[in-house]
């Protein structure tokens, strides 16, 4: 029997991970159903206080929301004014 495990690809923007000058880096993590985005961020070493917006397919998601299906989560840093 095959177990279905959501594969969540997390793309961070704006230098959150500081890997390369372009500022758009991504990490792929595989999580069990019900894992929250906050837990994913913790696993990547990203302070949740630095996250401004997270979105899946153009829909804003809360950090404490459980991730339930395959998808790409875009995570953007806090923007405190330009």
């Amino acid at each position, binding site marked *: 029997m095959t177990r279905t495990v959501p594969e969540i690809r997390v793309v961070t923007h*704006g230098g959150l991970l500081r890997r390369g*000058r372009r500022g758009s880096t991504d990490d792929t993590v595989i999580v069990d159903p019900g894992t929250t985005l906050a837990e994913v961020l913790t696993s990547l070493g990203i302070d949740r206080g630095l996250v*401004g917006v997270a979105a899946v397919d153009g829909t804003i998601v809360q950090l404490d929301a459980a991730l339930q299906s395959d998808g790409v989560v875009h995570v*953007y*840093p*806090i*923007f*405190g*004014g*330009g």
Partner: protein
Amino acid sequence: MVTLSARQAPGVFGKTVWVDLSAGSVREVEETPEHHRRFLGGAGAAVYQLLRQLRPGTDPLAPENLLVFAPGLLAGTQSPATPRYVVCARSPLTGALGKSDSGGYWGAELKKAGVGALVITGRAAEPSYLLVTLEGVEFRSALRAWGLSTGEAQDWIKDDVGDPKVRVAVIGPGGEHCVRYAGIASDLTHFNGRNGLGAVMGSKNLKAVAVRGGQNLEAHDAPRIKEIARAAALLCREHPLSRMLHDQGTPAGIEATNAAGALATRNWQSATFPATDKIGGAVLNGQYLVKRGGCYACPVQCKRVVAVDSENFKVDPRYGGPEYETILAFGSNCGVDDFEVIAKANELCNMYTLDTISAGMTISFAMACFEEGLIGREETGGLDVRFGDGEVVLALIEQIAHRQGFGDLLAEGSVRAAAAIGGGADAHVLAVKGQEVPMHDPRVKTGLGLQFALSPNGPDHWFAQHDPLFAAETSPGVAALAPLGLLGSVAPLDLGPAKVRLIRETSVLNSLYDCLGVCVFGAVARSMTSIKSYVDLVSAATGWETSLWELMHAGERALAMSRVFNVREGFGPETDTLPSRFFTPIADGPLAGQNALDPNRFAEAVRLYYGMSAWDEGTGLPTAGKMAELGLDEEFA
């Protein structure tokens, strides 16, 4: 040359130097120690001179208007991220207080020339520039520089002075033609952009103010300042917000704002821009960045320098690169999805000294009017002024700067242009107190809405601190501003007492920053330098035994004077509001149909800010008790 008294060892305060361009005279005033302690420098020193010396009702473009350049108290010292100077006058765009500050090196250089405030009145008989040095102030002809772009004029002035290290604050053709939102450029890449202060220079036949100081300031405890600066430099590498500012600059906020469904798009008719990936921070940093730039004694170095060398465009990196505001103003806001067009628009505005926010917003206003049929080719000189047409954007910038064709009307700004067009064109204006709003949507940041409404110099996105910095308990602003008594998080959409308190206290903090010359990109809550550090820096610079309490009162004093100035010029409580667009739901994107600000709740929050500030709800003036508390009652009550 008008020789002044010896200023061989300039201190941190500097003298007040008055220049009368009509009379060709200069006089200097040694302000009292009490004056320095009450007003510090920067905005405090400049607004004080305006309020005390400018006759109410003065035409902003008349010779009698005062134009004040004032570096912050800490500018010119080695204090970290304190390069800023302010320029003030009665604004030709708004009629209210004109106040625009800039970073760079010019302010520090003015202080090193021994000047704490340069107050200019009158009108020169012919185009002129001032050369300010330790030896005095020299009036020089600028006949040969008039009509030149900022870069050409700066080159000419450096040759004329014979010193390549002279720092030049200069206007381009936009200022000469008194475009109501013309700014002032220093070193070609730093700008007093807002409020039309470049037009005031133009009205005075003043092409530039060139400055050469050259000596380090004598601070009370220079080693202590260096010690704090070294610690800040180390912290800058580790503090995540400072690091991201250095690595990505302000354009990194574009993608985030689009994802949040709050990107100013097509004159704010839309809130998302599908082509954000073509204009955002990633494309700038990835394809066009040639180097980073920064300001005097700043470890952050957040500025971007870009170059374009393509078939269609050449963009000269000496004019720097577009920031977040500029990219949106000419990009999504005008429906333009080509970064090279935006970079070119930025270069042109820097060459001609046009404020990129007002220029972009006025052009997008015209696009909305054209697409609705309120204006046609007859009015635009044959141009199809439609969203998305980058060539039209560039053509209109040229016309505006030189007041040619349709650009002559747009040079008046969107409010006056709407009045001239009529037919409901004002529905497409997004302005407060006559000035176009910056690229932040109050419907996702209510505190930002309060900033737009309450800032005395029209909508100013740095009147206070931004909501997201305090959104959650883990947000960086929460711990950073606890010394102000701001404890705990406040949700971005909150509009209750906690939000008003946050904006009230941080507006006083930011006013203090404006008096000290602090850049918000180097200081908490946006960056790394702590509030306590600034108290220590002021003590080290001046020798005062001071406190946060005393310094915050100085910030509040500058705000109160600004308020008195505005009420005197006819800007009462009725002007402390927002464009009607922000009281309607967001049109599309992830927040479609949501987030309309409630006008009654917003007005209630404004009144609560008044109450916290001890401003009279009827007149908008600080109460007699507040004026007395701030020590302003005898001079300005």
